[in-house]
């Protein structure tokens, strides 16, 4: 979006002789300033992302310990000390199609969740962005209101809503009965998982979309209409392409956490709704096979980072 500057300011700014911008790293003071600014975030990334990832990568090449955890990294025999590393964990992942299948299934759930979130969030974000300024803040507040209560409690609430004693489901099944159809169960099905995923991630789609749509210059829509565009063309040729950065940001914020989540399928999915996150959690907490859990985590991280990179590249390609 173009910044609107009062013409007076522009003229003043133009009439002031401008010195060539100083290069930051030229002086030692400048270098210090740079480190002061970029240091803390770099430190954060190192401590909470790079180092744990390295530990995980290393763990994925090790053997599990006899009682869980990791086996010692060296073993000793009569010839001396040896590094005790292996590729066995990876070969296990690639030899058993079950895990790849789980990845594909999780990917499908996450993709479906992202799509449904987009379909619900887009009109919602548009509505908020186009309502009067006073109401906008209230509506945004309503979107983030669920964050004020515990995530798990909200998901447990869906257990009741989707459960066999639910009023809604009961009424729905009675309607089905009228048409001579079998009653349906929703809890502990993939359907329940996707409902839970959509419910939990919806705000992460609404907020970036709203932030984007709110910046659109309404004059563009007037211009489009003036030049002969009907409502559909105004949306498809103006609003939608301009909102793509918001769409990609929202999609990344929904897809990546939904891909690796375990709490929702744990609570709502039963055995049929299990996702890769559940298996990773199992490896670490139940089976206590940390190396294999690390392998699964690495595959998940690599896939997620690759997809995020792809989304970022698309967002950049769309020029805004």
């Amino acid at each position, binding site marked *: 979006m173009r910044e609107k500057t009062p013409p007076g300011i522009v003229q003043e700014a133009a009439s002031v002789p401008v010195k060539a911008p100083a290069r930051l790293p030229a002086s030692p003071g400048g270098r210090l300033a740079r480190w002061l600014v970029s240091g803390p975030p770099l430190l954060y990334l190192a401590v909470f992302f790079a180092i744990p990832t390295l530990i995980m990568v290393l763990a994925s090449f090790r053997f599990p310990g006899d009682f869980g955890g990791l086996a010692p990294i060296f073993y000793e025999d009569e010839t001396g000390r040896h590094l005790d590393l292996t590729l066995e964990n990876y070969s296990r992942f690639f030899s058993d199609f079950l895990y790849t299948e789980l990845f594909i299934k999780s990917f499908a759930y996450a993709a479906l969740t992202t799509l449904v979130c987009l379909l619900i969030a887009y009109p919602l974000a548009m509505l908020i962005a186009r309502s009067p300024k006073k109401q906008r803040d209230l509506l945004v507040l309503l979107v983030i209101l669920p964050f004020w209560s515990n995530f798990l409690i909200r998901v447990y609430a869906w257990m009741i809503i989707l459960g066999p004693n639910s009023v809604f489901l009961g009424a729905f099944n009675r309607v089905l009965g009228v048409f001579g159809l079998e009653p349906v169960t929703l809890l502990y099905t993939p359907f329940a998982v996707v409902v839970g995923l959509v419910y939990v991630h919806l705000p992460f789609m609404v907020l970036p979309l709203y932030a984007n749509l709110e910046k659109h210059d309404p004059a563009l829509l007037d211009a489009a209409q003036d030049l*002969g565009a009907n409502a559909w063309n105004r949306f498809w040729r103006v609003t939608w392409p301009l909102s793509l950065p918001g769409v990609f940001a929202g999609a990344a914020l929904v897809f990546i956490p939904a891909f690796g989540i375990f709490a929702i399928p744990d609570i709502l999915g039963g055995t049929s709704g299990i996702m890769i996150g559940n298996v990773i959690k199992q490896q670490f907490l139940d089976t206590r096979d940390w190396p294999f859990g690390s392998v699964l985590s690495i595959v998940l991280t690599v896939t997620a980072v690759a997809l995020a990179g792809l989304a970022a590249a698309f967002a950049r390609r769309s020029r805004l």
Partner: protein
Amino acid sequence: MALLEIRNVTRRFGDFVAVDDVSLSIEAGEFFCLLGPSGCGKTTLLRMVAGFDAPDGGAIFLDGRDVTGVPPEARNVHTVFQSYALFPHMTVAQNIAFPLKMTGVAAGDIAQRIEEALDDVSLSGMARRYPNELSGGQRQRVAVARALVNRPKLLLLDEPLAALDAKLKEKMQLELITLQKEVGIAFVYVTHDQQEALALAHRIAVMNRGRVEQLDEPSKIYGFPANRFVADFIGTCNILDAEVVREEGERVLLNITGLGEVETVRGEHLRSGAKGVLALRPEQVCISHQLSPGAEDNHFAGRVFDFLYLGDVTVYVVELANGSRIEAMLPNSAPGRAKFFEPGDSVEISWRRDAGRFLPEQSA
């Protein structure tokens, strides 16, 4: 039949009357200016013509057809917005192609039409640029090209040059005049800049507080302002309180409070005793050290109070016997010389009998 007829159009926002019973008719091929101070309802009127807003009273006819209820996309009228409203995600060519696509022009013809449109506004070679890669003047031209490319009946321009600097503005004004002549499409041009309106328009409607104060050719508007508002708003004007003494045919004898009697001309019938003002343009006021023989019809003695050097001209502020001040403008014919009169000099000022204009008090 007029191309655009605005008949008794009124638009209210709550209690506020933004456009108040405006009637205008605009002919095909005309360059028409809506001129008025900020907030006088120009944009509101324009939006009703474009179809973005509907009148609360009255009606708008395009080509003799009442367009009430016809949405903007179905009106053969295009707008150049003040912010240009170029689509930032489309190249110049795609921006210009937009209206063509919307009206279903065959894909094969579009490329050639874009070429022609760009040529019209001398932007050939810029087709693949994005709006943020253009200068203000270039953006403005793209907006005009886009609005003209499928030859609307009427082009509405809402202060299209307001964001440009003075030099560029002048250049674009000349280009717009040429372009309008070339394409022959009627322009309705909104501005609050009186010089721009005088320079561009065939006819000007001067608006104030939602009403049309005067509708005429530029030279008539400037030379014969209909009332005090127009006289004040267009150019600078000396305003002297006056009262009609008597009328003798074309000639009107006025008494200027505290100064004496002057003569002027006024077409309309005036009662003697009518109160009002005498409006006098600074360039119509002569200033000299002594009254030359065979002088102009009205003259008074005064003293130079101050002066304003403007480069091409110098404006002298002359204080008259009654304490009122009159501005007189003199071209600077001698280079390097800022003034012919010093503050404090005794001078004579004079003006032709047909120069001043008596404006009766408005019965508002």
